[in-house]
């Protein structure tokens, strides 16, 4: 972990990002005013239930929201000193796969079945580093070695169907890391892997991150992974970040009732509890988010005020903050 408090150390700063889906009769607010920062070399978690807008936030960062249908309507995405929402599509392509890379959820489907592994890993090398032939191959082999794929020379000419799920995800990671990006977005990359393979993969990414100093955004609904992988965590609910803080702080003193509920619903080894805690109700329909705090219908501590007005940002010192009337009123 590198020094990550100095202001000039910020790699990515997202301000008021809004990404909406425009449907026939409704507007689906998938990302509704998200702001967060990622420092150089820092690992930031993005946590929330399915449908809370995590994946859409990541796709917005790469300007790859599904077309047609979705659109980034507002906000700023500062990558160092350039706002990614101001540059042309052509300039944006120089970022994708070069300065920022993504690992997607499902390794079974994120590799193209008709091209060899070597070809697919070599693509960003040829495209962004302008290396060809033997030089590019050497880099591809290095990348495959870095993600601990055994016998990379032989595996190079093989196709995705000849790889296991865990190995495929390593290939995807190698594909992202060959160009030594400054930011790696990992969108639930271990969800479809079984637990032992998952642990191996997490350790691998952690090591690679520490070696290269790459910043990472970890998207997950698994708070165990966050504890293991991240320095900071942003908790998302209904398209907004409701709490942000250092991992240790949040685990020790969660402020938002939603964060607390998420932590309570994680099974703990050795802890004696008759029944695992469960958050009542369903996440809100993003086409009609309730007025006030979107979490109030499910919140055990909801007050009248929560139903009327969205809580303002309450600073918790440093960059930590929470959006909750309980904290706001309590001070």
């Amino acid at each position, binding site marked *: 972990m590198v020094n990550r408090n100095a202001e000039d150390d910020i790699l990515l700063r997202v301000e008021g990002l809004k990404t909406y889906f425009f449907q026939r009769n409704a507007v689906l607010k998938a990302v509704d005013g998200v702001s967060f920062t990622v420092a150089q070399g820092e690992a930031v978690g993005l946590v929330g239930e399915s449908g809370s807008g995590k994946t859409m936030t990541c796709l917005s960062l790469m300007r*790859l929201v599904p077309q047609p249908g979705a659109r980034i309507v507002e906000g700023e995405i500062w990558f160092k000193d350039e706002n990614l929402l101001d540059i042309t599509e052509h300039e944006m*392509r120089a970022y994708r796969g070069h300065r920022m890379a993504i690992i*997607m959820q*499902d390794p079974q489907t994120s590799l*193209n079945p008709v091209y060899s592994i070597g070809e697919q890993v070599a*693509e960003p090398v040829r495209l962004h580093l302008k290396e060809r032939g033997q030089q590019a191959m050497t880099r591809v082999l290095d990348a495959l070695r870095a993600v601990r794929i055994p016998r990379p020379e032989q595996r190079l000419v093989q196709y995705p169907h000849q790889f296991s799920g865990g190995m495929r995800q390593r290939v995807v990671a190698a594909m992202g890391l060959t160009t030594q990006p400054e930011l790696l977005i990992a969108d639930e990359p271990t969800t479809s892997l079984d637990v032992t393979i998952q642990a191996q993969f997490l350790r691998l990414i952690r090591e690679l991150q520490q070696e290269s100093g790459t910043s990472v955004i970890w998207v997950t609904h698994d708070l165990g992974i966050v504890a293991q992988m991240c320095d900071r965590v942003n908790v998302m609910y209904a398209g907004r970040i409701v709490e942000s803080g250092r991992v240790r702080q949040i685990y020790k003193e969660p402020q938002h009732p939603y964060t607390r509920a998420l932590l309570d619903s994680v099974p703990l080894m050795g802890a004696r509890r008759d029944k695992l805690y469960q958050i009542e109700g369903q996440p809100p329909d993003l086409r009609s988010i309730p007025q006030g705090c979107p979490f109030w219908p499910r919140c055990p501590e909801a007050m009248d005020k929560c139903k009327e007005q969205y809580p303002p940002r309450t600073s918790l010192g440093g960059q930590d903050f929470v959006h909750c009337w309980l904290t706001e009123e309590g001070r």
Partner: protein
Amino acid sequence: MLKYIGFRIFQALLGLWFIATLVFILSRSIGDPAEVFTARNSGVDAREIMAAKLGLDRPVHEQYLKFLGQLVRLDLGDSVSNGIPVTQILVERMPATFTLGLVALIFALALSLPLGVLGAVYRDSAIDWIAKVLAFLGQSMPPFWSGIMLIILFAVVWEMLPPAGKGGWQSYILPGFTLGWGVMAGMVRLVRSSMMDVLDSDYVAMARAKGLPEAVVIGKHALRNALLPVLTYSSLVLGAFMNGSVVVEQVFAWPGIGTSAVQSVVRRDFPVIQGVVIVFGSFFILINLFVDILYAVIDPRIKYTP
């Protein structure tokens, strides 16, 4: 790969043998050919002479073996109406039909690939609508009618193209387009839907996330996957060309196998019909064999599962 190809060739030979046997059985189960070829009041002698000439006086198994033996030597007997060897008739007429089929396939592919791909990429745009209308027309108009309409427009009214017959390259355009249009209709839809599926896939999103230009994302990563079902369809389509050629060759007075098929049916020229059926069947099997091998070349997953 070699094992796969070997296995498919074996399957193809099996298919050929099956067609030959079917033709043999059918030609003997729909009545006595000797009866058909002799005049109604010509008496028993003429019938027996005809039967002896066709080899029908021999036991069935002997006839069958002789038939297969001749077939292997590409001897399909002689035409009953004019005594010319069937093989010779077929060899003379095959090139015209095959070149017409090829032109039709080129028309169909050249129209449906770009229209289907662009329709999938730019959904509901003008080009998508043009593709839909062309496909709709092609699918709903029978070729004998659309062929005549095209002749009226391009040959009679505008005098741009020859109305019928086989001559220079211009003469291929109208029959080729007529034959290809109906096929192109289904193909456009297939390319479009298959492309749309592929465009939604994770590996296409991944290709974009690598920073590849959209042309490479579509042309390299999406198209090759989208072509797999199209290739399968093309093999079926070439079979449809064989059927279609019977009609289209009549409309355009095209000197191909389709025309001989119609003529020989009218003249009850049994050996020629047999020959046409065997040629069409074999062609269909060969195309399937070719496409299966091509499939294995395009999709690496196929080689290992014969």
